[in-house]
């Protein structure tokens, strides 16, 4: 038997390091060739790393959330035959030319003689117990738990078949879960640690950076969408089979395309380090999408070259891909302006955070029927607010107001979205 290292492969052009977001194996597991070992995240794409050969896992190279540079040891396997891990120290990562410049800080070259990094021990997290299932524990442990006021249903078991061991109870008690004696209602002093890793870490960094750098201001306007809704209902009713169902967003996308033609400063990326605004000809609309793991922004590319149906179909495809975790890097980057919509949860007003380095983001609020004074009578109209944010560093309030007013006039007379004036 020998030890062999599996190193983080080159997972994409220009990628120098990746974050381990999930381990599919643990120390002691036997793995077969091609079995998935781990998921690593680069930029926004998640890549699964398969096992190159059979073996037994003896050590993991990083905890979930840890960063590894390309070429660093991902994990170590015990394999039949001769190994390589002990014979030679882990070779230096071979950074590619382009990645060297990008991220030199995170992986200083290891000296040749440095021993392999310390390997983490598996955490004391057993499998979660299905609801309603009784905890398994020895009588002695049950008594200890009872005396400590611990409900064993809350304690994870790391033993065989999920049995709760004394060490599990120790760990639980160290977690500060002791309850006051005799109280009917017990103060819950538990604090759960959630590691901000993977997608959540990306979101956190991006949002904080956006708020820190851009000078946000928001502008809210009310839109009468009665005609637009009539048109939308009509198109959906008339649509042939196989056509995507139209929501309001494709109309907004089309209106945006028309509007940014006259407001090129809105469809732009501001490179604030270089102090250059890049005004883009192509309208690449990011669509903020809620997924199980958090916010993602898939991009409908070249909306100016797409018709209404095409926009709807592409948006639907991207949203599904993002939710299924199958959206690729290409589909998750490159937007020049973003739409955010929470549908029925849209509220009255939102203050969207810019998808930096973009300079404008359009937020869609909830639609409601409201009485409208025509000058002679009240009539029921379908009303909706648009809450938009802009980067005041490069967008003036006057321009932003005009921009939104133009969108409003297009949406309120929806035929004008489609008619060349």
């Amino acid at each position, binding site marked *: 038997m020998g030890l062999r290292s599996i190193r983080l492969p080159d997972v994409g052009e220009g990628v120098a390091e990746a974050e381990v977001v999930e381990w599919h194996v643990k120390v002691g597991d036997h793995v077969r060739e091609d079995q998935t070992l781990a998921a690593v995240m680069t930029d926004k794409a998640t890549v699964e790393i398969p096992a190159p050969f059979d073996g037994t896992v003896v050590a993991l190279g990083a905890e979930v959330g840890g960063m590894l540079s390309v070429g660093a040891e991902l994990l170590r396997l015990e394999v039949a035959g001769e190994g390589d891990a002990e014979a030679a120290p882990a070779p230096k990562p071979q950074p590619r030319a382009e990645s060297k410049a990008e991220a030199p800080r995170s992986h200083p070259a290891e000296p040749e003689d440095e021993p392999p990094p310390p390997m983490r021990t598996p955490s004391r997290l057993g499998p979660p117990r299905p609801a309603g299932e009784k905890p398994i524990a020895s*009588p002695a442990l*049950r008594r200890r738990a009872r005396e400590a006021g611990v409900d064993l249903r809350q304690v994870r078991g790391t033993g*065989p078949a999920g049995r709760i061991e004394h060490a599990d109870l120790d760990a639980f008690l160290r977690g500060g879960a002791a309850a006051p004696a005799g109280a009917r209602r017990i103060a819950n002093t538990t604090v759960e640690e959630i590691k901000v890793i993977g997608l959540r870490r990306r979101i956190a960094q991006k949002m904080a950076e956006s708020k820190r750098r851009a000078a946000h201001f928001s502008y809210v306007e009310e839109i009468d969408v009665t005609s637009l809704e009539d048109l939308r209902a009509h198109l959906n009713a008339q649509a042939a089979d196989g056509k995507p169902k139209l929501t309001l967003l494709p109309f907004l996308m089309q209106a945006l395309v028309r509007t940014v033609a006259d407001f090129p400063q809105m469809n732009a990326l501001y490179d604030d380090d270089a102090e250059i605004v890049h005004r883009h000809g192509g309208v690449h609309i990011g669509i903020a999408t809620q997924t199980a793991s958090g916010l993602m922004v898939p991009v409908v590319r070249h909306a100016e070259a797409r018709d209404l149906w095409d926009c709807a179909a592409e948006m639907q495809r991207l949203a599904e891909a993002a939710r299924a975790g199958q959206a690729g890097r290409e589909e998750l980057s490159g937007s020049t302006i973003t739409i955010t919509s929470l549908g029925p949860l849209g509220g009255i007003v939102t203050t969207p955070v810019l998808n930096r380095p973009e300079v404008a983001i359009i937020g869609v609020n909830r639609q409601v029927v409201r009485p409208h004074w025509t000058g002679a009578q009240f009539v029921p109209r379908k009303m909706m607010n648009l809450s938009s944010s802009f980067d005041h560093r490069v967008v003036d309030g006057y321009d932003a107001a005009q921009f939104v007013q133009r969108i409003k006039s297009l949406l309120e007379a929806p035929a004008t979205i489609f008619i060349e004036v």
Partner: protein
Amino acid sequence: MPEIRTKVLIIGGGPGGYVTAIRLGQLGIATMLVERAWLGGTCLNVGCIPSKALIHAAEAFEQAVHQAGTDRYGIRVERPSIDFGRTMEWKDGIVGRLKGGVAALLKKHGVKTLAGHATMLDGKTARVESDTGPQVIKAEHVVLATGSVPAPLTALPFGGRVISSSEALSLSDVPQRLVVVGAGYIGLELGTAFAKLGSKVTVVEAEDRILPAYDTELTRPVARRLGALGVEMLAATRARGLSPDGEALVVEFAGGTERRLPADKILVAIGRRPCTEGLGLDQLDLGMDGAFIRIDERCATSMRNVWAIGDLTGEPMLAHRAMAQGEMVAEIIAGQRRAFDKVAIPAICFTDPEVVTVGLSPEKARKAGHEIRVASFPFQANGRALTLGAEEGFVRVTARADNHLILGIDAVGQGIAELSAAFGLALEMGARLEDIAGTIHAHPTLGEAFHEASLRTLGEALHI
């Protein structure tokens, strides 16, 4: 009237009551125990202990009778006989020794005992009619542990030839013809013993088979042995009452035809009912669960600081359950946090062969929604069983299919009652099949069948 004050009053000195008292004494809590008949209760005086003595003596005699014929071990005995009076003396001696032991233990732990009948006046006060006159006892806590009595059959009231298990354990002679009504464990244990002692035994059971609480796989060896002992089994048959001359039991078969079963003794063993009458419990207005007192997982009744343990609180009516409850209640009274969180309460039929069940049977496990693996290992393939001449029976293990957690262990076989300790430990510790499979079981012993049954459930049995 003198009034006695104590911290805890226990009513009933059976296994539940006296264990509660001992533990309270150990915890330094002032305790008074009232018992109207015998310390040790049904179990020690007219239940577990005397019946096991009788069963053992009957077994020894039956072997001797067997050896007077063509014995397989080559032992030859000339015309064995039994002096049943001496048998009873021996049995009484054991009971006396144990009863003295209980009294000594109570005394050693500072528990005051009072002989007499207690009636509750309110939730914390009892009046006791004792030899020295009536007394009123006031306590902070009351533990009800009055146990159960044999249930009578309306058509066949106790008296004369009609006896309960209690009387059956102190007969002066072996009855020539014994009819047992009820093929539960009590009826079959005693019926088997008397058959071995020479009675012509007929068992009448309303259900269609013996030991209806157990599955047929487990009861089949018992039924076979009853047949070999010449016990007549009348299943799906109802006892209608005594014949007009009072010398026979009239039974009715499923088809409606009747038959007269002449009998010297008729043992009614159709079950037991809780002892809740005559205790003044109606004064307390306790929450009930049918005929039983309703308790929660701490054995608390619906009334604060009134506790109930043992047969009074429902099935299974077993001494070891009452003892475990009593131990727990004592500790709760002492201020400790406890709950009755046992995984399993083992149950044993001391029939021939013995039947042990611990945890869930395969059927109950399936009904509980578990996907299971089941396998059994026959004693025919166990060396020790063969050397004991006890090749009938098997050990059966039921485990969860997904994680191999053992859910139940059942066995039938000669002398396997002692294996219940291993079975109970396995369940209580949350053992998986691999835990049993990975434990060395001494050779040659009957316990190896447990090992092999676990291996077989994993598909790895070695000796079959």
